[in-house]
Structure formats: C-alpha cells, structure tokens
C-alpha cells in the first residue's frame, strides 16, 4: 500500500477542478458529461504557436468535424449549457427501465383482470390501431431526425440530451406496437397494418406526415431541439396523444393506453425544460449574438407553429372516431394552442396563438 507523494499531499485536488460547475458543487452529471467533446476554440486549444483552429482530420468536404454552421444560432460557449434534468446514461436508462417495467406490469394486470378483453372494439380498431399506431410513425421520424442532430450538436451536454430524446421517441413508437401485440390475445379488433395505411394515405394524417418528413429533412440541430420541444410537443403531441388517446382512454376503460401516454408525457416535460434552457442561454444578455438569435428563434417558432397547427387541425376526423370521447377536437385544439402560446410567451417570444410575450 502506498501513500501520496509527500510534497503535495495536503493540497492535491481529487476531482475534476477544470469543470466549472453550474451550482456550488460539481455534480456527477457534470463530471461525467462536460468536456467529453473536444472544444477546439476553448478548452482544447493548445497554448502553442499555431493560431489556426486545429483539426486532425476534416470531413470529406473539407469542413470541420464540429461545424459552427450546423446551426443558425451563435454562441461563444455552447459548453455552458446544462441539462436541467442532469441526466447521464445510468440515470436515464434507470428511468426508462422503470417506465417500461410499469407499462409491462400495467399491461399484465389488465390482461389478467379481464380489462383488455372488455375494451370496446371500436376503441381498439379506430383509435389504437387507426390513430395511435399511425402516430408511432411520427415518433419514429423524430428518432430519425435526432440521431444526426446529436452528432452535429456543438457541445457534449447538448449532444447527450439530444441522444436521450432520440431514444425516447423510438421507445414511444415501440410501446404502441407492443401494446397492440398484447391486445391481439384479447379480441379480434386489432389491425396493426391499419396504422401504416392511415399514415401513408388518410387525409387526416398527411399534414402530420408532411411535418414528419420536414423534421427528418431539417439540418439545424438547434432548430430541431427548439421546434420539437417548444412547439410540436405542447401543440401536436399534446393534441394527438395526450388529448386524444390519454384523456379518452379512461372513459373507454383503457388504463394501459393512458399509462403509456403518461410515460411519454414525462419525457416530454424533460425535453421541454431542456429546450427552454437552450432558448434562454442563447439570448442571454452576455451573448453578443443575442439579438440575432432572438430573431432567428422567433422566426422558427412562428414557422413551426404554423406547420404543426396545420397537422393538428387536420386530425379532427381522428377525434370523431373515439367511441366515448372525453373531449372534442375543437376543445383539445384550443387547449393545445393555449399551452403552446404559454410556453412561447413564457420565454419572451410572441406566439401566433396569441398571449402576451
């Protein structure tokens, strides 16, 4: 057994003192996340004589590995961003494992107590297969879009948060499939193929599909993070999943569907908080580009709001198919628009849905 070297034992640090903690003490999340991505302009810039920005290997088109042009927003220190949920892999996977276990248990209990066999065939056929399964393709599109977004993000903290959100959406998409597979044991109303058919062909889903394809085509990782979480989440996912599936699940005696949606809502709240943190950071008064960033974000919010709203408006027929509706499309749309306006104006922007900034 050894002792520490004599000369320095008393003063030697035993933690990563080079990381500036957001609060008083370095958190486990910060220690395991911050400065994992090289910062060629700051933390990793060698003190030598080369003034140029250094890249060991450029991309095939000659651009840098992490490119400031990957977003229209400007920020002198992207690495200052912190995930409000402080998620690192262990906490994130543990959280999702708990959510998935709770869904499995709820499904198993409902199967054993006969609840699944008692579900109204119209609920299963028209809502779960015709609508919720169609919506799983929208979730899948977000997964597709966020994988390259995490690759391009200009800091490790942002990339990791996008990576976790990417995983969230594939989880949501798969949960719909798993539930329908179970329901096949409890009646003959399940038509799994109906969801994809509706997604590809039904007029009610074409604006949503257009938006999904535009999301997959969006190349700006920050625009995706803000547009998805400040607009699509509170407006479209709120309407299509929370209002339509979760709220109507209870009058239609489907506790499992309600439970599945609630786990997605928990993820949505986490991602909303992350996006709000980003929106605040880039317009902070200390940022020299705050005014330009504010104008860019306002433009994005307006644009995403219009496109998401078109998808939300088109979903009226899906509400009409609910056997025992808890709400109407008009009520749900008004509520979702108000929620979106509250998010946007709460950050100091104007919303096309009204509300004072």
């Amino acid at each position: 057994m050894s002792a520490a070297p004599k000369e320095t034992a008393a003063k030697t640090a035993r933690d990563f003192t080079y990381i500036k903690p957001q609060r008083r003490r370095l958190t486990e999340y910060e220690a395991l996340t911050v400065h994992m991505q090289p910062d060629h302009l700051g933390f990793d810039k060698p003190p030598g004589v080369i003034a140029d920005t250094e890249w060991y290997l450029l991309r095939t088109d000659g651009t840098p590995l992490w490119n400031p042009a990957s977003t229209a927003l400007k920020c002198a220190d992207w690495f200052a961003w912190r995930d409000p949920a402080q998620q690192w892999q262990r906490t994130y996977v543990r959280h999702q494992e708990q959510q998935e276990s709770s869904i499995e248990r709820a499904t198993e209990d409902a199967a054993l107590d006969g609840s699944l066999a008692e579900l109204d065939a119209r609920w299963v056929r028209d809502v779960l297969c015709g609508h919720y399964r169609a919506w799983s393709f929208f979730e899948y599109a977000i997964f597709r879009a966020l994988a390259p977004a995490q690759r391009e993000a200009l800091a490790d903290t942002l990339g990791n948060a996008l990576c976790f959100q990417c995983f969230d959406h594939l989880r949501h998409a798969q949960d719909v499939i798993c539930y329908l597979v179970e329901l096949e044991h409890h009646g003959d109303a399940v038509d799994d193929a109906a969801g994809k058919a509706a997604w590809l062909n039904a007029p009610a889903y074409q604006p949503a599909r257009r938006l999904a394809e535009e999301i997959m085509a969006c190349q700006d990782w920050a625009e995706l993070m803000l547009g998805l979480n400040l607009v699509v989440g509170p407006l479209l996912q709120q309407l299509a999943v929370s209002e339509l599936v979760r709220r109507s699940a209870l009058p239609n005696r489907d506790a499992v569907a309600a439970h599945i949606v609630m786990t997605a809502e928990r993820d949505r709240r986490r991602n909303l908080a992350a996006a709000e943190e980003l929106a605040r950071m880039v317009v902070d008064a200390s940022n020299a580009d705050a005014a330009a960033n504010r104008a860019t974000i306002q433009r994005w919010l307006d644009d995403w709001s219009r496109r998401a709203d078109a998808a939300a408006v088109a979903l009226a027929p899906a509400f009409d198919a609910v056997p025992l509706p808890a709400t109407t499309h008009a009520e749900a749309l008004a509520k979702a628009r108000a929620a979106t306006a509250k998010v946007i104006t709460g950050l100091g922007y104007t919303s096309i849905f009204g509300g004072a900034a």
Partner: protein
Amino acid sequence: MKGEDFIKAHDRVKDFDWQPSYAEAPARYDMPYRIPAKTSDPFRHLVRDYCAMERDKDDRQYGAMSDVMARAKMPAKASERWTEVLKMVLPVTTYAEYAAMKCTGQLVDAVANAELRQGYLAQMIDEVRHVNQEAHLVRYLAKHAPDPEGFTQGFRLRNTNFITRASRAAFDGFFAGNPIEGALNLQVVAETAYTNPIFVTLTEVAAANGDQATPTTFLSVQSDEARHMANGYATLAAIASVEDNLPRLQRDFDTAFWRQHTFLDSFVGAVYDYFQETRGGSYLEAWKEWVGDDWAGSYIRKLEPFGVNLPTNWEEAANRIQWVGHTAMMLFAAAWPMQFLRVDPLTAKDFDWFEKKYPGWYNHYGKFWENYATMTDPAEGRFPLGLFESPPPLCRVCQMPCVFPRPDISTARIKTHAGRKHAFCSDGCERTFAIEPHRYAHNYTWDEHFEGYELGDWLVACGLLRADGKTLIAQPHLKRERMWTLDDARALKFEIRNPLRDLPAQGEVAVLQ
C-alpha cells in the same frame, strides 16, 4: 414479452421507414455506397429489453465500485506502476467512445435500413454509457488512488500530449468521413479486432496487478461490444452484397485498418507490456490470438468469398507488431517530463521477461532502459530526449513519431504537398494522405504547435505541475523522495524543436485519384 409475441413485435418495429412524399431529406453525409433494402438483423432487442439489460449491468458495476471495492480500499492496493498508466489510457478510451457515439448518429441518418438503424440507436446509447463509465472510473481513481495527479487533469491534457493527440487522430476516423468509412474504422476494425485485447485481455493484466476497478468497468463495457461487432458485420455484409460497392469498400477498409493499427498497436502494446508489475502474457501473444487468428484469420477471411479481402497492408502490420509497442514506449519514456504520469525504470525481472517474450529485444531497446535508470535522479541533470541528436518528426496522418517499426529500420519519409512539408511514418499513412490530402489542411503536429518553447515554460503553459505549483506531475520513477521540480526541468535547458523544419523533402506526394 416472449416467444411469438416478441417475434411479431420485432418484425413490426422493422417496418417503420417509408418513402417520403412531401420532403426528401438532403444527404447530410457523403455516401458513396448503395445500401440494400434488406439485411441481416443485428439487434434482436426491443427498447424495453434493452433498458432492463443495461440497468442490471449498471447496477452491478456501479454497485460493486461504490460498495465492496471502496470499503476494501482496493485502488490503493493496486500496483502503482499499473495504476499510473490508467491516467492516460482512460482519457484515450473515453474519447474513442465519444467518437463512436457520433459515428452511430451518422449511420442512423445515412443507412436507409430500419433493421440496422435500431441496432445503431442501441449502440449510440451504449457509447454514452461507455463514456460515462470510463469517466466515472477516472473520477473514482482520482478520489481513491494514492497519487491522483494526472487522473484529475487527464481530459484537460488530451490535446497537449503527443500520444493522446495521436489517439484523437485515430478516433476522429470514426466519424470524420462517410458513415461507412466510420463504421469500418469503428465497428469492423476498432471494435471487432481490438476491443477484445483492450477490454478483455488487458483486464487480466489489471487484475493480476491488483486493480479490480478497471476489470469491473471494462468487462461491463465489453458486454455491449458483441452487439457492436454484430452491427459492424451486418453493415459490412450489406455493403459487400452490392458488387459496385466493392472497390470503394476495399479502399476505405484499407485506410481504416491502417489508421487504427498505427495508433492502437503501438499504444496498447506499450501499455500492455511496460506497465505490468506482476507479469503474465505479452501484447504480441494477445495480438496473435485476438487480432491475427480471431479477426483476420476467422472474421475477415470468411468474407473473402464476398469480395472483402484482408487490408492491403495487413502483412506489413503483422510484421511490425513485434516492435511497435517497444518503439512507442521508448519515445514515450524518453519524453517523460511531457507526460502526465510517472514512468518507472525497468527491473532485471522485466529485462528477462522482455527478452523471453520478444527475442532480440535487448539488442534494440535494452541499452535505452539501462540508461533511463541512470537518469531518474534530478541531480544527474539529464533526461533521455535531451540526449537525442534530433527527435523524430511526427506523422501528418497518425501523429505518431516517425520511427516505426524500429528506429534502425524506420519506414519514415518526408514529402511535400501544396507547398507544405509533411512527415509520414509509413506507406500506409502516406497513401491515406494521398487519397484525400485536403482533409489534413488544418492538421498540425505537436512539434509544429510547440516549437520554440523552453521545457519549463511549456510545462507551465500546459499545466503539468502538481498542486504545489513546483513539482512535475510526470516523474521518471515511483519514489516519494526527490521528485523532479520545475527548477530541475528548467536546468535541462531543453527547447522544443520541430525536426521537420530542417529535414529535406524526398519529393512530392503522388496524389491518388
């Protein structure tokens, strides 16, 4: 979910992609390959199963480290010689994991195949896991190891140390090029060929030297790697199934192998062979088993009927293995004040082991280590690099010193391109450069960055001093008394030079189209 239900659910999750009607995503990444619509399925898990599996593994690993090992004060009982090298190994592997995460993001985007995409997503989260696990291990050792200096600063020093800079040059290959080039670097070469010698065999060395924390972490990491190898195999098989892909595939495979070989074999070889105190097998033996027999002899050769051949420079690489680790370690130890760990001299027992495992070792490296042992006391006023007539230049591509495989039979060459002088350590690196010279336009070597610095000033600028502000983090021994200080370093009167400046070029790089 089990049995038929699982198969049904799994079939359905593979049917998520559709042909866009409204907005076609522009190609984000150069993609010179055609991907078939159907491939083998490397990922037979649902997200639900994946989370349960990974949580269980996390609980076991972190639980063991925070419970039994911490209470038993295990890090303090490990061999100090071994623990020292982890100060450098762990920042190196952590960056590899981070680069791997970026690689998989590119693959999800570019590989239009739902089966592969879901496998890549699982790998993406795995790589975040590995980054966190390895950073956690660094922090754990910073808290518990006898000498935390170096553990607390390793991530900060990765761009000022000439070896860790070379690791960046290798692992940037995971995500700098087209996504398939990245997959070849990461999944086919680094993970399939090298993770077994690194995460399995190296852990045996760690355990034999009293370190239980590294095996606990590394074996948990390696438990994910089998899936990543399956991703690599499925990707490779998919690409190779389209005949038009084959010429480009072989070119990218050749450069991927050489890029990883030049760094990994010299670095891992040095770590493996020179930091064991309780001695067991050699890196050469591990390499023959895992890389030679398992990877090349079994995995790659089975692909030959499909048009995928061993890398062009495979035989040259195999011949270099005997020496590259020793050569790298000699340069590393010669420049010991510039490291962020302590390098102790070899003992008589070590000398015997090296000669037995690497016949002829003493003739080439023995004298260096004998001399090294005479220079550990600062009163001697000497360090090995200061006695070199001229240090070797660093390779433009792999950033390693141009002395491989051995100084007396070095394959180094100096060439020019577009009015700029470049050193290359080998045919493989020159050829890699010649294919795409524009990708090295912002690449500088350690010498180019720091030339003109007096050693003491450089140590201060890079933050290579201990908490007292005067003792060097690096030391040429493990003793507690008479450690080298900044004053000792200044007394060496050593100035960093850029040898490339004075070496004559031997012609122009012949650019390959």
